[in-house]
């Protein structure tokens, strides 16, 4: 069983961030949503481990709630 790694693991964070934004260049909002969904599914399958995926999903949802100042 592996845990979700949230320590730095990207060799060049700025490069990655740039590529992620560029991925959506010239796309409509709907097209971007579809690309994001595909990316999630591709990466999820690559990771595979259900515990890691669940932890990532929980973290994503948790951060979303706090960002809005919601309880």
């Amino acid at each position, binding site marked *: 069983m592996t845990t979700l790694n949230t320590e730095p693991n990207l060799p060049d964070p700025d490069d990655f961030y740039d590529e992620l934004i560029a991925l959506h260049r010239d796309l409509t909002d*709907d097209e971007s*949503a*579809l690309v994001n*969904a*595909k990316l*999630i*599914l*591709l990466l999820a*399958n690559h990771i595979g481990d259900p515990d890691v995926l669940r932890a990532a999903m929980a973290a994503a949802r948790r951060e979303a709630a706090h960002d809005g100042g919601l309880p």
Partner: protein
Amino acid sequence: MTYSPSVYPYRRSPDQDGDVVHYPVVIVGAGPVGLAAAADLALRDVPVVVLDDDHTVSVGSRAICWAKRTLEIFDRLGCGEPIARKGVGWSTGKVFHRDELVFQFDLLPEHGHRRPAFVNLQQYYVEDYLVERVSALPAAEIRWMNKVVGVTPQADRVMLRIDTPDGDYALTCDWLIAADGARSPVRTMLGLEAEGQVFRDRFLIVDIRMKSDFPPGRWFWFDPPFHRNQSALLHRQADDVWRIDLQLGWDADPETEKRADRILPRLRAMLGEDAEFDVEWASVYTFECRRMQDFRHGRVLFAGDAAHLVSPFGARGANSGIQDVDNLVWKLCLVMAGLAPDRLLDTYDIERTAAADENIKHSTRATDFITPKSAISRTFRDAVLGLAKHHAFARRLVNSGRLSVPAVLAGSPLNTPDTDPFEGAMVPGTPAADAPVTGPGSKWFIEYLRSVFMLVTFAAPIPPEAAAALFRDPIRCRVVHVDADATPSISDSQVVIADSAGLLTKRYDARPGTCYLFRPDQHVCARWRTFDLTAVRAAIARAAGNA
């Protein structure tokens, strides 16, 4: 029309005059589930009356995909063969996105089973064959145009008020099986509910008659060119009748969509402008998944759609209803005979609510994929379909319906847990796997599991006095002995069959001395590597709720 509905006449019963008559069992509803229960009870010589408020069978083909397990149950009840012969067998399915194949499945990839994964046959034909079967059994009676208008459960019986064209009358019974369908009047009369959800979508269901060489199997499309942004499903039935389901969306108006001027263009878009076909039946459906909290309420037992409802993607509706009564009837008979405690009937509720939950889970997931509930859900669904074209992992996420397989009753208290090591799938709680054999009767193993407890022994015969003792026990157990080279034979207490293809031994991970104990509904409830009479008797007692 390829079929003219059978009309079964109303007949006044002598029960309608004089004192209130009492029956061990009354069944409400002469649909497939009620009729199957009646056949099973009558074959066990239990007097049973089936009450139906109508005088005909299913209007429209409705449930058409009859699963292998259901066919095995129909075989046990003596009506499987006409259904399998009239219907169209299939095992494979294809799923398309736009005009590309994205997913294929084979539900029965191995040979050596009597029945295919599915037989497609219009529900009215299945009901006619069941009526024919039940009518041939002296212990059962079907009363048409008998409408139950009052149900009064009491401590030691259930009182029924029944309305007929000749006025109403009363009956009482020890046990009432409510197989009266999705809107279950019995359920309503008892103030009970089935909770769940409605799927906000509408589907046009059409039967057409058409000569076509289109190959067999289940065909499903997401967003095909002929029905953009919606789903379509195609199945072949008997008589060159084809079932087409077309998703319409929630905003479609059911009355408008049933009109010929709406249906015909849709069909021509799918089948080709020059296609020759006749529309036999059309209806617009909205699907739901629901279930009652408890399927047992004292002396009233709910089965089929009266107990649980699913959307049809996966063929888990009628099939699970038949499996409900397969589970119920042998238990009811042991309780009625005083051989099992009343609490054995609680295990009907335990086992079949678990099965219903599994069916609801799978049907709901498929329906959510076919009818996404939110914009983001639709986005993910379309993402899966897009990825499935190029990537193998995404194909397994494509969900147009996970087709019905019988529930494995793995957690049931009636099972005896394994104490010996076994490989393979045949764990306690699993329905019997079929295999070709050489025997004094059928050439299929599953036909030797005969509505009583069955002990199947491999290679090392058990002492004849042990087989005789099991046969004479109050809860009878018959023995089937399997040997590679034995001469097939039959006596009261033991049948000898040969595992001619070796598949039985393989499927059951059997070695010399291996024993499997099956319940009367052909589910494994215990297994061992050596025979021990005390252990077998204890497992039978446990499976009958006596432990």
